[in-house]
């Protein structure tokens, strides 16, 4: 890429960073220090603001770069991600958003701990939340790395490393200084930027094809070299039965995972009531659905305009399809239009990554401080305050994410996010649903549900072709691959539910009826909600 691209992209991106840092410092001038403020931003965001913020938190680099890239490379099979990412919101809206808002205070563990013996449950749910967040963070870091590699024209080396480090450092600054209030505003700014960028590109694609979707699809199919097959399922996940099972596993993980993502759940605590939580979920479904419909157009557009060959040459996993599409739509490399559009898209993608990373870091620092530290502290006497610990935790998580992000550079972002969703669906969703809806659920059941989903999910990923035994894996030279599927969801999600049930029926203690009554009444009416 030429120098003009780089300069303009860097300028735009610096603008975003400056604005968001400004927001952060401006917001943190005022009230500081209370947990309510740091984790939940004061709980007075409006449903529309929170709807945009949820969109900003949810639509990550995995969607903007990853899903579009997969559609550009594999056609219809990439579309499953878009469908799964959206349908998952029905689970959130129907079963989780309002009830979690009513019962919990800051984290997922709050909901479970409300009716269980607090310490073991908090430690379990805190551990799994941090794990999910870390996996999700790695995906975002990989996205940042591959984006900068494209931007600076180098596929490896110092630039990529420094980008990952820079993104990590910035997000730590956001979170430690601004807490939830600043993070929310960053999400809102990012969501507006991302949606405007996507609308602009979609319009340009449609103009290029004179508004004829049919021609767009036919051109994409022709250029892909697969013909009609490009528009039907099976290119990536067809063929062998393991590949097909992998597809189903991924589909199940996507639809059930969202409701277990800690950074999404914590967003619902930033509004005053369950009703506002519901309305923010409705807002976000509208915005997210609109975004994915456009992402599908962009994916096929990239296949039709840029062509899968060029996309693959730039990034093996397809993560750079949209920036390349923007370059072409603007008039090609070297033209002013191309330079500007490319720079805008690159800056938007950076902003996307940065915002999502900030959101996840905040949620996981809340898990560390509010769940893990608060539970472990009681046995050792008092230390520093919870919010101070949360700030330190944010820094620690930032470091871990940077290190892991550097390790996982060559994997598709959407695929990595699929793993995070599988772990969230296995470890967090069963315990959450059982706590809210199952009268007889006990503490042992809760602990078993978390570990019974978390351990198999992580174990199966370790034994899968992602980690070893295949050319694209972390350790291509060794082979300890015993599990055929890349996504563990199909096995580990049922195991999580099963473990929760098993732990409950083998429990010595009976479930506390009064505590369940409290959870049920509070969840549906909002009585006693903070």
């Amino acid at each position, binding site marked *: 890429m030429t120098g003009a691209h780089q300069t303009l992209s860097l300028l735009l991106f610096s603008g975003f960073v400056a604005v968001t840092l400004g927001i952060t410092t401006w917001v943190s001038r005022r009230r500081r220090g209370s947990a309510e403020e740091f984790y939940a931003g004061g709980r*007075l965001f*409006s*449903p529309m603001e929170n709807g945009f913020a949820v969109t900003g938190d949810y639509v990550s680099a995995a969607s903007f770069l990853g899903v579009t890239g997969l559609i550009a490379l594999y056609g*219809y099979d990439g*579309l*499953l991600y*878009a*469908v*799964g990412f*959206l*349908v998952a*919101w*029905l*689970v959130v*809206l*129907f*079963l989780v958003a309002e009830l979690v808002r009513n019962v919990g205070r800051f984290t997922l563990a709050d909901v479970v701990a409300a009716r269980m013996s607090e310490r073991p449950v908090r430690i379990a749910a805190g551990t799994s939340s941090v794990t999910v967040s870390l996996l999700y963070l790695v995906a975002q870091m990989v996205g940042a790395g591959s984006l900068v590699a494209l931007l600076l024209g180098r596929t490896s080396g110092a630039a990529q490393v420094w980008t990952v480090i820079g993104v990590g450092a910035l997000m730590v600054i956001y979170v430690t200084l601004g807490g939830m209030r600043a993070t929310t505003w960053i999400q809102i700014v990012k969501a507006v930027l991302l949606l405007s960028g996507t609308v602009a590109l979609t319009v340009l694609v449609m103009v290029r094809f004179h508004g004829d979707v*049919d021609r767009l*699809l*036919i051109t994409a199919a022709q250029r892909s070299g697969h013909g*009609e*097959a490009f*528009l*039907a*399922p*099976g290119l990536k*996940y*067809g063929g062998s039965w393991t590949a*097909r099972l992998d*597809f*189903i596993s991924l*589909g*199940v993980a996507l*639809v059930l995972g969202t409701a277990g993502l800690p950074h999404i759940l914590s967003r619902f605590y930033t*509004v*005053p*009531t*369950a*009703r*506002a939580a*519901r*309305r923010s979920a409705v807002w976000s*479904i509208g915005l997210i*659905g609109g975004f*994915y*419909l456009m992402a599908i157009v962009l994916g096929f557009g990239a296949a039709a305009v840029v062509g899968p060959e060029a996309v693959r040459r730039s990034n093996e996993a397809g993560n750079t399809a949209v920036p390349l599409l923007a370059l072409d739509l603007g008039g090609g490399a070297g033209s002013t239009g191309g330079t500007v559009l490319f720079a805008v898209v690159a800056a938007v993608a950076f902003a996307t990554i940065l915002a999502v990373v900030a959101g996840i870091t905040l949620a996981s620092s809340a898990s560390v401080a509010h769940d893990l530290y608060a539970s472990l502290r009681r046995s050792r006497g008092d230390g520093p305050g919870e919010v101070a610990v949360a700030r330190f935790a944010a820094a620690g998580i930032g470091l871990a994410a940077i290190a892991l992000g550097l390790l996982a550079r060559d994997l598709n972002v959407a695929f990595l996010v699929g793993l995070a969703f599988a772990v969230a669906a296995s470890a967090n969703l069963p315990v959450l649903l059982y706590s809210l809806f199952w009268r007889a659920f006990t503490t042992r059941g809760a602990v078993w549900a978390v570990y019974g989903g978390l351990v198999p999910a992580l174990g199966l990923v370790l034994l899968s072709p992602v980690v070893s035994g295949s050319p694209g894996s972390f350790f291509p030279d060794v082979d300890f691959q015993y599990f055929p599927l890349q996504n563990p969801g199909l096995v580990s999600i049922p195991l999580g539910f099963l473990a929760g049930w098993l732990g409950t029926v083998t429990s010595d203690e009976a479930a506390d*009826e*009064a*505590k369940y*009554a*409290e959870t*049920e*009444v*509070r969840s*549906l*009416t*909002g*009585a*006693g909600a*903070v």
Partner: protein
Amino acid sequence: MRYEDPWYDVQASGWGEPAGAGTPARTVPAARGEHEGTGIRARDIYVEVQRSAAFQEVRSRYRRFVVPGVAGFLAWYVAYVVAATAAPRLMARPVAGAVNVAMLAGLGQFLTTFLLTWAYARHARLRRDRAALELRWDTQELARGAQGGAL
């Protein structure tokens, strides 16, 4: 109508805090019971509310909508994913121009998601919100009474 605006139900008054201007005038006698001001323990209040007819009604309205809804969209989604893997030939059948069955099914998923979101929000607003809010204030009144009595 105080219920139309989210800022009217923001008074998240906690335990023992005086319920401010947001307290609705209407009450549901079934949940209130005869225990106001007496020294019953806070945890018993929730059991009592849970057993009240008003709460049972709210809960069954919620469940009657959510259970078939979740079953429906999960079944439709799983059918879609399984069809994409097990019956690619069916999915590849052209319908009009470049649009095939798979494309229509994918767009159908988007459409049903939007429709169900709208239906859920409407159902909750019309059938659940008012009763839930009344229960909330009643429960908190009871809890306040119980706490006051225990002191």
